[in-house]
């Protein structure tokens, strides 16, 4: 989980990134482009998405606003295996 930030959940079905705030309604951080092969934490403020076609994207969130700040093609970044303790919640 992000430090002092909402839990981020990622749907492997839709690719959506959703913030679970705990007190308010869930917030859609980024609407996905379709099914994912995997999703994992890249670092404290970023997640790595791999599409079913093999594209890999790094999604970075602002530690201040909690909102998505950057989307970049991921090159040279190793993804942590899905389900590890470095993963955002994947549904």
């Amino acid at each position, binding site marked *: 989980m992000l430090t002092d930030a909402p839990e981020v959940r990622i749907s492997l079905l*839709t690719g*959506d990134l959703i913030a679970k705030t705990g007190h*308010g*309604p869930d917030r*859609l*951080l*980024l*609407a*996905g*482009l*379709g099914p994912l092969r995997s999703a994992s934490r890249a670092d404290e403020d970023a997640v790595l998405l791999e599409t079913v076609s093999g594209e890999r*994207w790094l999604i970075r*969130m*602002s530690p*201040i*606003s909690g*909102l*998505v*700040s*950057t*989307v*970049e*093609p991921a090159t040279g970044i190793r993804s942590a295996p899905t389900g590890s303790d470095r993963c955002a919640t994947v549904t």
Partner: protein
Amino acid sequence: MRHSDVIVAGAGMAGLLTALALARRGAHVVLVEPVRAGGGQSGQSHGYLHQGYAYGPGEPRLPAMLGSAREHWQYLLAGISPVTADSTIAFSDTAAVRRAERYWQDSGLAVRPRPTPPWLTGAPVACFASAEPTYHIGDILRGLWAQARSAGVEAQPGSVLRIEEFGHGVRAVLTEPDGRTALVHARAAVLAAGAGTPGLLARSGLPAVVQLRKAFMLVLRGRLPAVSVLFPEREEHGLFLASRIGDDGQTTWLVSDFQSFDSSGADPGQLAGWWSRRVLLTLRRVVDAAILARVDAVSGYPATKSGLLPSSGTVAHEVGMELLGGGAVVCTPSKLTLAPLAARRAVRTVATRLGMPFAEAGWDPITPVPTDLTLARETWEMPMAGLNRADLLSEPPDIGALSEIYHR
């Protein structure tokens, strides 16, 4: 140093309405604008002046605020024809349609059954129609700009660098277009600079009461029907599609949604391309292919959303805040629809400070002004980079190509 009664920073919808109402009361108003009337957030609107969209339990005061704003708009827009006189609300989720219908009705807006329009296709959708119109916001900005000038508002190109207390009023440091600075002394200042307000507050040593979010607009041009619709998406999330008809007879579709992103200024990389490709994929799923084939150009631009930090409820409830003991008023509605309420509050505060009467805002119905007589423009009316003859039917442009049009 120049002297005036009021300095208004920003010639968007809220700034123009405020400046106009104060000038009509006899105040000497200096309206400072760095780009052009509507060159900021007001020119990035999707054109819906909301009357009942699905604001739910999380925003309980909003229906009443929208109702109050609607009374102002009905008067202001008596001479402006909407681009579309009603809207289609369509979701693939029937329960979402029922929920939205209820919100619309609770807001006092009539809804009626509507079969799925022939240009909506593909995914099964359930629809209803609302009387919610969409407007060419440029017409409104141009009309207000003309009214403001006629009322004696002094237009000052440039931007307000900072404001500070000075004697019994405020002093504004302006940056003029040639880079020189100028000083203006006034009895009050209205900060209606939208995305520029947080910087202005910071440079003035005032509290950071305005937050910004980034959003995007997708612009499609071609021989398209003039429509307004809320498209089906996941649950209550959806796409707004609103039309504009240009001087050349071409129709422009402006497509936006509910998502907002961080606005700290970091390079967003290919975020815009990601967002716009997702929107295009949704459009391909729900819009008839024969319609999409008429799209000649795809373009877009980043948009900013600003709003006061909520002191209670949600950001949508906030329209204004007084600073410097009432010498400065932050006038930042989070929705364009609420601009008359924000302006009314600013006018009341300033009028009280200046000892002027305040009963009603004092606006007149807006008369459209031809585009060649003023520089007031919406963003889509300006030259824009784009992808021409993009084939949306076989495969939408990739994320990288789409990102480029937002960076140019």
